[in-house]
């Protein structure tokens, strides 16, 4: 008897394009009501995974069950119960905001009266009511993204899937989108999202998997991942270019769980950042800047893959 609280179940899920393996035998489960994230750099296989979940990309191997159904044979029935926010906006820019929702609602076979009622509510929710009868073309990137989110909710989906929901947005527009997504999550909407922003993953995801090279490198809540793969605090030091290498060698004397020497910085993974800074001073090293901070998912990613998220 399958567990009705598990909405998506993947076992050995694989996607190949010719010789290239984009998604390499991954396992995960999505539970009802949670916000689940795929964190990884560009090319990690996140979008390919999302397209398979969205039933617009047949898996090359493994098992995938969505809402108890098989995406290959029951794709249309599954898509009827999903909301999808693709990486690139696929809005019709020549139509009005309202017409975009009308057309999309009709794709789901919703009656016009139902669409009209939901349109009012959804545009309120994404703060676009005043632009309802404007064309989409002149809207800002953030507004278009919010409209795409409103559009994805027109069928009152059981799962909302978002592929890089804030990529390309300025910080302010990004925060507005996060706020809306956070509200959806609080209202019990099940979210699946991909991101290469660790702050997005930390703020929105109850549980996430770190993806790299088509594989899942680690899984857990943001807190669990940080506790498992990083230290409590991080001391970030920056030296002048000609001192950098020398300083990095000397820093080996500072007791730390781990030291990462990046091109422009040295990161010391420690329990107590201030204590570590005192030892650095004791070595007669004088960094240009120093910063004590908490560990983030960025540090988890660095630990797991040896690369930074933005490196791609």
């Amino acid at each position, binding site marked *: 008897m399958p567990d009705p609280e598990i909405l998506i179940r993947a076992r050995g899920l694989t996607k190949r394009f010719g010789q290239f393996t984009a998604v390499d035998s991954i396992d995960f489960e999505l539970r009802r009501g949670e916000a689940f994230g795929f964190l990884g750099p560009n090319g990690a296989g996140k979008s390919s995974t999302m397209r398979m979940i969205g039933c*617009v990309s047949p898996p090359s191997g493994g098992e995938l069950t969505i809402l108890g159904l098989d995406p290959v044979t029951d794709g249309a029935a599954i898509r*009827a119960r999903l909301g999808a926010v693709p990486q690139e906006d*696929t809005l019709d*820019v020549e139509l009005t905001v309202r017409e975009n929702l009308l*057309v999309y609602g*009709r794709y789901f*076979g919703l009656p016009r009266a139902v669409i009209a009622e939901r349109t009012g509510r959804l545009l309120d*929710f994404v703060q676009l009511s005043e632009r309802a009868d404007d064309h989409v073309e002149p809207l800002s990137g953030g507004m278009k993204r919010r409209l795409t989110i409103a559009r994805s909710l027109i069928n009152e*989906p059981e799962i909302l899937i978002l592929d890089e929901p804030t990529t390309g947005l300025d910080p302010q527009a990004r925060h507005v989108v996060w706020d809306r997504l956070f509200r959806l999550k609080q209202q019990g*909407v099940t979210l699946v999202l991909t991101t290469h922003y660790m702050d997005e993953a930390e703020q929105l995801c109850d549980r996430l998997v770190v993806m790299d090279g088509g594989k899942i490198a680690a899984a857990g809540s943001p807190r669990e991942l940080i506790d498992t793969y990083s230290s409590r605090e991080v001391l970030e030091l920056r030296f002048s270019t000609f001192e950098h290498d020398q300083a990095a060698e000397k820093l080996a004397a500072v007791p730390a769980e781990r030291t990462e020497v990046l091109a422009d910085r040295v990161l010391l993974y420690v329990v107590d950042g201030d204590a570590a800074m005192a030892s650095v001073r004791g070595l007669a090293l004088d960094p240009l800047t120093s910063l004590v901070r908490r560990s983030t998912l960025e540090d988890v990613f660095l630990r797991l893959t040896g690369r930074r998220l933005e490196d791609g």
Partner: protein
Amino acid sequence: MTAPALRVRPSRPGTGVAGTWQMAVRAFQYWLVNYRRTWRGTIYSSVLTPVLYLGAMGLALGKLVDQHGTAGLGRVSYLVFLAPGLMAATAMQTAVGESLYPVFSAVKWQQTYQAAAATPLKPGDIFRGHLLFTTMRLAMNTMIFLVIMAAFGAVRSGWVVAAVPVAVLTGLAFATPLDAFAVTQKKNDQAFAVIFRFGMIPLFLFSGTFFPVTQLPGWIRPVAYATPLWHGVALCRSLSLGTADLAGSLGHIAYLAAIAILGLIAGERAYRRRLYV
């Protein structure tokens, strides 16, 4: 500003999916909403183009042609000879115009197809929905053409009414394979200019629209007879002149329908391969 709470009520399992025909109609509705912005302009050109052609070629050039005798035209005036052929050719032009760029735009520039593919619509539904709109545009343009043709006094038989669905079928014999082709284009629209220049224009000029194919050198006539446009032109003309016979008409229809159906099968496959990657 605080947003109102959003009611979350999961939809009933099984809703949102319907029969093939209804799904295509849903996709068709997008094109209707879209057409609300542009219909006026298209009506002007649907009226003006036949008036210009029938005036310049049918009447003015026709006067000159008629002075030299109409035996080669089947003893009707050039206007009467030309008009039904032009009806079929207009359908071809409409079909090409509604297929190449709109399909490429929907799959590449605007990604309206991808938006629809994320809903219960399947690639085949999206394809057939777009084709329904093309069919509507073909029916509109052909009927407008018929009215103008009648106003020019270029009709000899009431059977000309049957030329409308024949012209629509002629258009579909172009639209389905061209849709199938256009949706596979990945990078740009360069191939379309080639189709216009080396496909549509020669067909328009040499498929019996402006002069009987018997005027062509014997060796090239089989090529003209093989083109779908010639079948559409020949059948529309025989209906307009009242000279159509059953066997010949069925032959033309079968040929046009066969191409349209092959295009339908190819299109279904091409849309699926492009939208389900």
